[in-house]
């Protein structure tokens, strides 16, 4: 090979998705805003009335960083599962791209990068809502934006692994309800993980990316609660690298025939 498989052309793959996103921005911008609004009202203030406080933090402040983390996960995971699958399988976009000087690896990395970007955009839309409720500390919480990119890359890569695996768009429902939904409720999101048996805690921190994302997000919005922040950050970085490599492998196996 004269050139490596991944070059700056990744940006063009990313750019194509961004271009389409901007065309439909009126629709694209609404889900994160409404999601976070309803979560805050229902959980923070609805359920929150029955919760005294958690380790000295009132419940809306406890739940707010989890809402951001869930937003990051959903933004990128659903983009690189349903979104990428539609592009790959129904619109044949990937076929069109690899007929140009773009490589398969660039298509895959570009898709993950776009998933990460979408997570940053969603984070940027959720933050003002939470700021209006006065449940996050500023400007420290602005660090959620780069965290959104990291989490978005990881969940984007995870999503793309399932896209490479799934035989049809219907079977993509399995990872959603077997993995994403349980993770959403069991990652220290709505109640602290230390209220669970220690084995479950260990499993959660060993395997669940959202648990680390939530704990880091919480460390940023509630600066007093950061015991494992460095560990979580390292875990996310390593996992992102490994899952990205895996997604490229799986996608190559699916697309190179």
């Amino acid at each position, binding site marked *: *090979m*004269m*050139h490596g498989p991944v070059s700056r*052309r990744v940006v*063009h793959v990313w*750019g*194509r998705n961004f*271009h*389409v996103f901007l*065309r*439909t921005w009126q629709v694209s911008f609404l889900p994160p805003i409404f999601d976070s609004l309803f979560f805050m009202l229902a959980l923070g203030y609805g359920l929150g009335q029955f919760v005294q406080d958690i380790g000295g933090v009132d419940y809306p402040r406890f739940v707010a960083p989890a809402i951001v983390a869930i937003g990051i996960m959903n933004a990128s995971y659903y983009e690189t599962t349903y979104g990428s699958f539609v592009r790959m399988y129904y*619109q*044949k*976009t990937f*076929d*069109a*791209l*690899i*007929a*140009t*000087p*773009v*490589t398969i690896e660039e298509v895959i990395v570009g898709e993950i990068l776009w998933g990460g970007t979408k997570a940053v955009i969603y984070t940027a839309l959720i933050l003002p809502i939470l700021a209006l409720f006065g449940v996050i500390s500023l400007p420290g919480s602005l660090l959620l934006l780069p965290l959104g990119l990291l989490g978005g890359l990881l969940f984007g890569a995870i999503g793309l692994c399932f896209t490479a695996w799934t035989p049809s768009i219907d079977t993509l429902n399995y990872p959603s309800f077997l993995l994403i939904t349980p993770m959403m409720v069991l990652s220290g999101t709505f109640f602290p993980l230390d209220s669970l048996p220690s084995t479950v805690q260990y499993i959660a921190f060993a395997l669940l990316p959202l648990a680390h994302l939530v704990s880091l997000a919480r460390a940023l919005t509630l600066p007093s609660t950061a015991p494992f922040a460095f560990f979580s950050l390292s875990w996310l970085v390593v996992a992102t690298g490994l899952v990205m490599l895996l997604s490229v492998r799986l996608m190559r196996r699916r697309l*190179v*025939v």
Partner: protein
Amino acid sequence: MTSPVILADGLVKRYGNLVAVDSVSFRVDEGEVFGILGPNGAGKTSIIRMISCTSPVTSGRLEVLGLPVDGFPRDIKARIGVVSQENNLDPDLSVYENLTVFARFFEINRAEASRRADELIGFFGLSEKRDTVIESLSGGMKRRLTIARALINRPSLVILDEPTTGLDPQARALIWERLRALRSDGATIILSTHYLEEAERFCDRLVILDRGKILLTGSPGEIISERMSRALIEIMNEPDVRAWLDQEGISYEVYGDLLQITTDTPEDFVRRIVAACTPQRLLVRNSTLEDVFLRQTGRRLIR
């Protein structure tokens, strides 16, 4: 002599146990229109995808624009234009955007992309639809746009996989007309089709594939004249006609209620048969690639 645009030597494509392309060799020279023909499943698309560097070669040699496909896919892809069988336009984008967004993958700058996009939109008669989202285009317009998109990088070689399949005759005629214009500009074109009559009119040279192997190769005229007489005569299958043919020792093929006879002297044949018996229906036409193909792939000769 210039180096060939495409050189395939002992080219093989295997999918698991299935041999889709079975040791195929051919060359395409600059400025030629080269056809890859054959029934469905003959291996046309597999060859096209290997030439387009989107599917790896199992074994054998394949060079495109003087470069081996397994070493220089990026360089090759930068200089070719590919029109795939399936529509893979961007449904969310307009006609114009489909061209300009695609141009970025070739590192064409914005101003130049915009200029080329409008030029191609004009050339393919899509000016009225320039800012329409492609969802609302007809099948023929979508195909024209796909071909336009394949030309955005000014390719030295244009590859079209079944460019007219699924289109109505009017839309097909329009596409051939544009391709002829492209051809007179000196472009090298490779196309696959299963419409043999279109290939016969349009291709300088062609290969006819069957089950992954090359069955016939040459210019359409050569292929026909080397294997068949000039003319083909169809007569209603009736006992007195058959009896006369048998008596004269003229071979024929039976297709249901029709008899086919090939001859280089149709005028003479018609004069004799009309004098001898009274055939119900008699049609004289030129032999076509279709006739050659049908003969080569399994219609048996009676007698």
